[in-house]
């Protein structure tokens, strides 16, 4: 099975849902009425894409099709084009669907550093294990740094993953300064000539200023150790998150200049539409989606492919 097929499989549920939505709601040959549009609006809201984006789509539908005879293909096209333009948010990012590493900005030489951040419990640590697995399967030498020194057993959790993956991990005692862990991680990665260092951080709410400052400090320490690092700052979002995701993206980006999103837990019934809402206010591409609790449950996110997979017949 090709990677693109896997991606499509990962999104199958969402796709089926929206496709049935369009088939259910708009009957070929009938006149498109306001009540159909309102029903579709409800489904759009149900994806968590937010009021603004949902309104933008139904407004387009209304302008182009209200009061006219339904031609399913044309309605498809309107929705798809609008959603694509909403998702692209200016600089549409395209990945090579045949190269799962393509979304990552890897340093041409020396160690690439990936810093992973996000609010509590979204799936940071698990996503790190998945990324490490992906990188290793592409022959990269990976080191992990257990930068969550706060939550009970967070270090143990990442340590267990490192053992399963057979990669090295740098840890410090509970309650040590996370920036010191990041520092030690950089030192170790350089020492053993690792290709990639991935730094875990404790979950924090974006409104906790002191903790956000701590995050900036971690970034600065990494910068000081390895020129050009961190090459990627990935913000992990929980796919079940509603409109608060917009605030998360905004505040985390202000603190550490995020380079991309990982949308975890997309294997549930949540649609992860908040990434569309986020795209309305900032240009922060989704790079990967998490579709399970195991190390290989990480898929590439390609916005073109995503929308096409969503609506393709």
């Amino acid at each position, binding site marked *: 099975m090709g990677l693109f097929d896997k991606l499509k499989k990962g999104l199958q549920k969402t796709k089926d849902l929206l496709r049935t939505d369009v088939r259910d709601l708009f009957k070929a040959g009938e006149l498109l009425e306001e009540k159909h549009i309102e029903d579709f609006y409800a489904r759009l809201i149900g994806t968590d894409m937010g*009021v603004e984006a949902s309104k933008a789509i139904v407004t387009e539908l209304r302008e182009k099709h209200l009061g006219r005879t339904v031609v399913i293909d044309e309605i498809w096209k309107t929705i798809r084009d609008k959603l694509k333009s909403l998702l692209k948010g200016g600089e549409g990012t395209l990945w090579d669907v045949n190269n799962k590493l393509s979304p990552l900005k890897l340093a041409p030489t020396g160690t690439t550093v990936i810093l992973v951040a996000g609010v509590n*419990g979204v799936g940071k640590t698990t996503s790190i294990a998945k990324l490490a697995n992906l990188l290793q399967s592409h022959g990269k030498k990976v080191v992990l740094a257990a930068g969550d020194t706060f939550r009970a057993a967070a270090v143990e959790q990442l340590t*267990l993953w490192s053992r399963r993956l057979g990669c090295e991990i740098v840890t410090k005692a509970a309650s040590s300064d996370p920036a010191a862990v990041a520092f030690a991680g950089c030192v170790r990665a350089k020492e053993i000539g690792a290709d990639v260092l991935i730094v875990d951080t404790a979950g924090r*709410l974006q*409104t906790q200023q002191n903790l956000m400052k701590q995050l900036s400090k971690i970034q600065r320490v990494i910068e000081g150790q390895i020129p050009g690092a961190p090459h990627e700052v990935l913000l992990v979002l929980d796919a*079940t998150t*509603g*409109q608060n995701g*917009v605030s998360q993206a905004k505040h985390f980006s202000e603190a550490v200049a995020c380079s991309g999103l990982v949308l975890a837990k997309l294997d549930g019934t949540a649609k992860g539409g*908040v990434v569309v809402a986020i795209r309305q206010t900032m240009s922060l591409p989704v790079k990967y989606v998490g579709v399970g609790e195991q190390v290989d449950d990480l898929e590439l996110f390609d916005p073109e492919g995503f929308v096409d997979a969503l609506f393709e017949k």
Partner: protein
Amino acid sequence: MFESITQNLTGALSFFRRGGKLTEANIREGLEAVRQALLEADVNYQVAQDFANRIADEVVGEQVLKSLDPTQQVIGIVHRQLCELMGPVDHSLPPPSSEPVVLMLCGLQGSGKTTTSGKLARLLQTQGRRPFLVAADLQRPAAIDQLRIIGEQLGVPVHTEVADGNNAVRVCQNGVAAARKADADIVILDTAGRLHIDTELMQELQQIDRKVNPHQILFVCDAMTGQDAVNSAKAFNEALELDGVILTKLDGDARGGAALSVKAITGVPIKYIGVGEQLDKLEPFHPDRMAGRILGMGDVVTLFEKAQEQFDADQVAEQQKKMMEGKFTLVDFKSQMQQIKRLGSLKDIMKMIPGMGNLVDAHPDMDAEGDMQRISGIIDSMTPEERVNPELIDLGRRRRIAAGSGVEPSDVNQLLKDVSAMAGVMQDMASMPMWKRLGAASQLANTFAQNPGAQIQAPQKSTVMSFDEKRRLQEKKRQQRKDTKKAKKRNRR
């Protein structure tokens, strides 16, 4: 970030005549504002829709009271209905009995079950109970360690077993038996996170339910959850007949519409809320506070309670009197600042005031504490006479004060202007009834958030602004002036 419901409603209902009747046609736009506010707060679409209709039924035909503006009146009704829907409260946990009673926690991955197990154990401890924890999450790496560490922190015994090849149902049964031996009176089962569509794992929970027969099953739900909250809550409730919900991570800026959705769809009461990662951050759920939060109106009740605990009542009364008389001086200002400081972080406080939340959102980098310190410094550098009679402060004195407190003379000037402006606003406010006063404060904050350059509406703001911000603002104002000029020219043509 979000327009507050007050703003939306004010726009929608602005054309109402006072003393007129609310009719179905003219309320429709207002209801759209209610619905939109709920959707933006992540209330489920159907729930928001039903709610808006319910409000319509109640509102249509009502007289718009002469004394109230329609917005306030409708918000009052919306607020009350929200409270009714999210209530009644039931904070009960199973009482002691001859055998240890059992609590089971369940929910999606990462919602906060393990942390909440610890929080509940701590709460029960403070009530003189003898809690006992059982680590029934055999899935997530180091989940058992996590609960063990939490137990150690609290001095609460934890039953653990090896994860590999084991079975959670058995662990729970063994755990309850161990609790009995340890003479515990309440057992908390921390189960693994799972998706509600994972049939196998949902059956595992049903088996635990059958075998261990917990007295209460609590669903732990992340307050940041969006539209999907109803799907998971419904599925867990159908599988397990939930007894209560605990809403976590409410210490952030999530509006928490999930609370309304979950209650409306399942009918299961929300018992507690999690407001931090530490084990003492668990509070009983209050529908009125949640309603304010969902509507973006701030947590007024909590603020009042806090204020009551902390404020010196006599001083407040004295200041109130002075405000009424417009005699609010720098001395009063400083003492008020000190009282406010006792309440906690200024930002937290502002978030609890209706509309002020917007302000905090709009200026995330403002350093209110630092500015208060600076202001205190300025006031401290004045002589007692100057504090009571600021008119005395001429250019020379201004320079002296500035030098004494390490600021620019213009800052001193600004402070004096602000305080005298504030005295005026406060005089107005002091003569209003309480709820109106909150409305006024909220309006003030809103204008302020949108247009921080506004003078008097934003008295303390100018002192809160950093120099960079000031420069940016001046630039913006210049641009605005240019734009108006251009517009005028266009109109002439």
